[in-house]
């Protein structure tokens, strides 16, 4: 059995229209198993920090991260209420179904 979310890729197309991504530093809050993270990586940001409170989901995301994205994408377990990042370090923050 398999579940495919957004086969038409409408979500990532809307995100591409919403802002410029190339070369940007991006934080994704609520990354889950990394479904959207990988699509965001395809938009060309310099770096993606992705965070989710669920450790099992983050483990799955790390395991599924293709080698070509390993230098740009970093997954962490953590809460949106206390982000483990310095002030003013991201160009874009995505609340991915997380607010």
């Amino acid at each position, binding site marked *: *059995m398999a579940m495919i979310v957004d086969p038409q890729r409408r979500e990532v197309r*809307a*995100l591409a229209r919403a802002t410029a991504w190339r070369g940007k530093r991006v934080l994704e809050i609520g990354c889950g198993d990394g479904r959207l993270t990988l699509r965001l990586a395809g938009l060309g940001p310099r770096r993606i920090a992705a965070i989710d409170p669920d450790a099992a989901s983050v483990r799955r995301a790390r395991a599924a991260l293709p080698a070509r994205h390993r230098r740009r994408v970093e997954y962490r377990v953590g809460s*949106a209420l206390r982000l483990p990042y310095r*002030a*003013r370090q991201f160009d874009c923050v995505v*609340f991915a179904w997380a*607010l």
Partner: protein
Amino acid sequence: MVHALREAHRVLRPGGVLLDLRPAAEHRRVGIGEGRRWRLIGVMREGFEEDWAADRAVAQVLRERWFRAGRRQVFVLDRVMDGAGDLRTWIAEFQQRRALASHAWLLARTERALERTPGAIVGRGPVRLRPLHRLG
């Protein structure tokens, strides 16, 4: 939620953008068949209290001028499932995140429909994307 938005404001550089991506507060529909062949089987009965709370939090940070709202987009997002087991898993995941009454009726109706017309199960619902530009 307001605190999470303020944390996002803290880590954003001046002029940066926060993208609030989440399902719209509308009932998701479940059907069989992809694309134009999609046929409605049932409408979910989820509650929207958390969505409305998130809307209020966004309204508050806009009012307090932490952010300025950009142009909103709305699009339909499909979730394609191979079988009733996937639909059961999806509903169970839903129930972990928020209060949701039993949807056994929807599972049963979908299984009956699949017996008549085999095909992919597709959960469908609108998703909103709103840019919030950091102020200050």
